[in-house]
């Protein structure tokens, strides 16, 4: 069943509760249950964290390559440049997120205003 499979007001909320809340809170609750009883660092958790990171990274890639709304009106080159330069400046600035975000935004806005 998909998010808008049947036309009711409650299905999206039920979908969010099951695929969102339950899928997230289960780990939070298990963490409380096991809190202090198991080691927080293990090889399995390194692997699990890598999968989670790659998954969210997949979303990042999709948002840049297949954006929605007004961002879709910009060129792929501009979006990639903005993110790449923002990320580079973030690294150079000693991992300051706000600096990286503002740089990427500045490149995007400059590119949009300068392009015909």
């Amino acid at each position, binding site marked *: 069943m998909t998010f808008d499979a049947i036309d009711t007001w409650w299905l999206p909320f039920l979908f969010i509760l099951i*695929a*969102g809340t339950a899928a997230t809170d289960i780990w939070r609750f298990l963490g409380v249950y096991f809190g202090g009883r198991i080691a927080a660092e293990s090889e399995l958790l*390194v692997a699990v964290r890598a999968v*989670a990171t790659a998954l969210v990274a997949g979303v990042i890639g999709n948002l840049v*390559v297949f954006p929605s709304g007004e961002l879709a009106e910009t060129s792929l080159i501009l979006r990639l440049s903005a993110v790449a330069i923002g990320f580079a400046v973030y690294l150079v600035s000693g991992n300051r997120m706000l600096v990286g*975000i503002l740089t990427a935004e500045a490149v995007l806005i400059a590119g949009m205003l300068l392009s015909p």
Partner: protein
Amino acid sequence: MSDLQDAAPRAETDASFRWFLRGVRAALTTPGLVLATAFVGFASLALEEGFSLAEAGFMTVAIWALPAIVVLMGAIKSGATLLAAAFAVALSSVRFLPMLVALVPEMRAPRTRPWVLYLLSHFVAVTSWVVAFQQFPRVPREMRTAFYGGLAGWLLVANLGVVVIVFTLAAALPPVASAALLLITPIYFLTSLWGSSRDDAGKIALGVGVVLGPLCHAIAPTIDLLAAGLIGGSLGYGIHRLRGMRRA
């Protein structure tokens, strides 16, 4: 007589409230500002992808973890089934297990009731988690649940406000501003994931996943995130292990 009996619990309630407010104040710092920026990005994205304010607000309150929310939105956008979406979100949220395992012993006092910890755990996301670990040494142990409640509770309520404001104002924005808001989410996550990955497995997974996401989306849109996560994560972990073995 009854005044005397009440005095001690009342003093404790006062102290709890004071530490709750100090928790709120701890949320009004740079990490809180960065998170609010990220929620501006999320709300713009949700609006643009056709979610209602009620749905976006519900996701904020009921899920709260922003990576889980954007993974869920991505899965919904690509037409994933309930099971596939839940699986992708669950994979993106496993990190909460070790996060809570580490946080709970710091937060639990001898008289802390379990339900308080389970309730507070829903408010755990990476921002409050990091701030809590920074601030806890200065918070008396019996006051840490109150402090965390103020910190994480305020972050949630404030960002729900951010979502409402963005939904109200976004329609009036010029196109350049709308586009700029939509770029916040990817750059926010790129930098935050890089900063929070402690080992090279995470950094490799991040690099591979960014490329694999769009690639898998072009090939198999309904399972793109699962594929990117499993392939990218395995590669990252595999290379991390190989390097470790070579070093040893």
